[in-house]
């Protein structure tokens, strides 16, 4: 009995000590590089469409698992796929909502400049007293202009397909 106890205890001591040394030698310093990596991927416009206050909050939420990888409409499917690969989850592309763009109804716009001051990406151009218009390639669809507009002349709409954005459909057959 004593022999067995001693033997096991010695074994445990030796192995434990060895592991302790190894742990020091092969210590991994960086705590969670994932959050930074994800934040670098995000659009960074802090639009808040994901429901989190800004992109870095969303990145932390993603790493914790409290946000879906499809949460970022401006990033699109491309971002969702990258996130899914990084986080090791499977992506259900069907969940992705189509990105919306702001559109200004020229007939109602008074050129008050409030929307373009609210726009986080400078996607609205125009000057005081002139009709404003939205640059499609800079608009993230965050909707902040919508709230800022006193005339209610801004609407969010799915972008119309053009020859540049039209894509071949996936074949239906097996």
């Amino acid at each position, binding site marked *: 009995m004593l*022999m*067995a106890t001693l*033997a*096991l205890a010695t*074994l*445990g001591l030796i*192995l*434990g000590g*060895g*592991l302790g040394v*190894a*742990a020091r030698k*092969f*210590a*991994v310093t960086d705590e969670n590089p994932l959050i930074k990596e994800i934040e670098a991927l995000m659009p960074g416009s802090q639009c808040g469409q994901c429901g989190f206050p800004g992109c870095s909050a969303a990145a932390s939420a993603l790493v914790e698992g409290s946000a879906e990888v499809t949460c970022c409409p401006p990033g699109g499917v491309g971002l969702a796929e990258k996130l899914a690969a990084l986080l*090791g989850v499977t992506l259900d592309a069907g969940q992705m909502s189509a990105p919306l763009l702001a559109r200004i109804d020229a007939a109602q716009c008074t050129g008050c400049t409030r929307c373009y001051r609210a726009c986080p990406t400078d996607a609205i151009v125009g000057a005081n007293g002139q009709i404003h218009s939205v640059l499609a390639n800079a608009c993230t669809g965050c909707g902040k202009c919508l709230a800022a507009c006193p005339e209610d002349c801004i609407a969010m709409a799915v972008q119309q397909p053009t020859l540049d954005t039209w894509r071949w459909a996936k074949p239906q057959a*097996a």
Partner: protein
Amino acid sequence: MEYLLFLIGTVLVNNVVLVRFLGLCPFMGVSSKLDPSIGMGVATTLVMTLGGISSWLLEHYVLLPLNIGFLRILAYIVVIAAMVQFIEMVIRKVSPPLYRALGIYLPLITTNCAVLGVPLISVREGHSLVQAGLFGFGSALGFTLIMVIFAGLRERLALANVPAAFSGPPIAFVTAGLLALAFMGFGGLI
């Protein structure tokens, strides 16, 4: 030549997964993609070879002299667990992507029954030190071989229209069974 035959016997004829049915958990868990399965195979090979040798040493220099053979399973588990811990640390340091890919299965090598079973079989068969090392190495090689073959098959299966009821693990188990059928052809070789 003798050792070569011994090795072939352990890898193919008495394959640890398909003939002895050991180590099925990581075999099913990690074999869905090729790259992690190769990594898992390498890690397991390392653990099993070292495990085979160290448990032989433990057996012949500690357990038998002290006459405490009844502690065999306990002692083996302790040694293997320590070794897995060590390998985990090394992999984490050397190759973070592999570490991430292996995920939970790396610590699970500890509970991989093949890792414990192979030294126990080795003791039962009364292997010499070289044989014990070869047996561990060969078994792990057989494990890796099957993992890699199986990962290839599962990558193909992922593209197939398997009926919904069978897709995923069910068809993988069916395939493993059929693969075992094919391996029966090696019976009697050694």
